[in-house]
């Protein structure tokens, strides 16, 4: 099986996130980046499928400026065979349609059996890229995948539905799956893997310009002007005051 895994570099959960003075994005210099959480699970799943079948190829693909080569190397160190870096400088790559078309362009010649992406990215949280890529490349798609069974030119996947329900669906190949966190235990890169990663290929491609339909206007820290009011007095007085507030100020009664 030939599997592509989309990995994204995102600010780590514990990273400082100061807003840039232009209010378009965070100040990147202050950010500590990590691999997007669900992408890490997607990568592990791909590596396990390859290892179980003792054949195949796992190719990681990522979009962004030069700094993202850090997560690409990390994925190679964990065992991916080679990488494609779609080089793009804009940080506010906020339009999932544009993002997906860059990926689709880079992926279509390669004829992958499976394309894995994380369920969503921890920065923008659009949760659309993998599904749109599947559509663009005419592949079967499934989102929120919790388990995968391969065999006989088909795959069966377990999807997470609402309220604790799950669904098993069969898909024909090729397919694009968006992977939910928690379906496996991602490995650490071994030192041997880290040392070996520098010998692996990272193909850098420049994408064709695509018009974005969506862009970031402004980001800011929400401010709240709510106030806490302490109600005092006898029980009757307090109840009366509360009802007055519900009725006239909050208008819930």
């Amino acid at each position, binding site marked *: 099986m030939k599997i592509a895994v989309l990995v994204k570099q995102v600010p780590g959960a514990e*990273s400082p996130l100061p807003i840039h003075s232009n209010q378009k994005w965070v100040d990147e210099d202050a950010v*500590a980046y990590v691999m997007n959480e669900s992408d890490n699970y997607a990568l592990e799943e791909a590596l396990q499928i390859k290892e179980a079948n003792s054949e195949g190829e796992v190719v990681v693909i990522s979009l962004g400026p030069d700094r993202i080569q*850090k997560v690409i*190397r990390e994925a190679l160190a964990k065992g991916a065979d080679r990488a494609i870096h779609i080089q793009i400088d804009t940080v506010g790559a906020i339009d999932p349609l544009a993002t997906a078309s860059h990926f689709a362009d880079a992926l279509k010649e390669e004829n992958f059996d499976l394309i894995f992406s994380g369920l969503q990215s921890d920065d923008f949280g659009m949760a659309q890229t993998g599904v749109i890529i599947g559509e663009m490349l005419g592949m079967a798609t499934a989102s929120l995948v919790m388990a995968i069974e391969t065999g006989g030119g088909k795959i069966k996947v377990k999807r997470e539905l609402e309220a604790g329900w799950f669904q098993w669906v069969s898909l024909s190949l090729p397919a694009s799956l968006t992977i939910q966190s928690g379906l496996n235990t991602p490995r650490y*890169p071994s*030192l041997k893997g880290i*040392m070996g*990663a520098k010998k692996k290929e990272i193909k850098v491609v420049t994408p064709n310009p695509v018009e974005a339909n969506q862009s970031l206007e402004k980001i800011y820290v929400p401010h709240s002007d709510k106030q806490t009011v302490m109600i005092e007095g006898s029980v009757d007085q307090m109840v009366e005051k509360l009802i007055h507030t519900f009725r006239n100020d909050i208008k819930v009664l």
Partner: protein
Amino acid sequence: MKNYGPDFYNITDLLTEEELLIQQTAYDFVQTEFMSVINDHYENATFPMELVPKLGELGFMGSSLPEKSGGAGVSNVAYGLILHELERGDSGLRSFASVQGSLVMYPIHAYGSDDQKAKWLPGLGSGTKIGCFGLTEPNFGSNPGGMATRCKRNGDDWIINGNKMWITNGSVADVSVVWARDEDGIVRGFLLEKGMEGFTSSDIHGKLSLRASVTSELSMTNVRVPDSARLPNIEGLKGPLSCLTQARYGIAWGMVGAAVDCYNTALDYSKERKQFSKPIAGYQLTQAKLAEMITRITEAQLLVYRLGRLKDEGKMTFQQVSMAKRNNCAMARDVARIAREILGANGITEDYSPIRHMANIESVYTYEGTHEMHTLILGQEVTGMAAYDS
């Protein structure tokens, strides 16, 4: 270092991409697999043996040695960063890696026969075998040259008699590197195997420092080994001393990890803990403590970084290692104590790491050459006069 604590002088910028990824891996491993179990092991005075194969799989055992010697061929700075992260967890974890890599794999790699290398290095590197290093004796600590353990030629064999004290991993080791003096007074190294006739061990109990580490006494009564158990390519005290140089190098890095953990804990706490009108971080006395800590940590980081690059270039001297070991142990000891002060009463509980580090550092301050012995080594280096008898 940037993501994981103070990096006041941007030392992270001097690290390679690989070194950073190696540090991240070690950090993630320790935080995920080790921090949840350390307090129980510390309390019960046990070591999490189940983690040893994982450490091996990741390549953390003897990682700067070449692959054919069971290592991973990483730079000495990368090796230092791994020990930094292990000791951020606990000195017991770092001690395990130091002994295995620097005191057992290193001498077999540097002085062993091909058969010895083939027999031991793959298992030691993958964490399926454990090693220990026996130099110190009940009556010879700072002065190992005086050792009483004897090896005597007997036909093709050697007969070994003596006791070794304070031996990390002594009772759990599959192979023990034991140093003994022959009839001509020459110090020789032997690889003794667990279960050999006359070779026994017993653990030292009641330690209030380095509790999450096995420390034992080894006893040899007429232990008979073939000459093939002797390390063939070294003789004299420089054998064990060269191993200690390797281990001390790693300790100097490890101490920064312990200090950083104390500093981070104290800094966070001082910003949260309010007394009188504001967080205690807002008071000058607390700030003086934090300023002192970050300065001493930064000095220590610069020492080990430069030392590591010198080692990578093959230019490191043992006196330079003495300076880093001496300085960084003293630094970490002070930082742990100041961090504990800032934590107030909370600082005396296991809920916060500084007091555990503080207790551990007492061992690290003493082993691998006490603070005083490194002072004398530096004194000799700058004056040309030895203040101890050799």
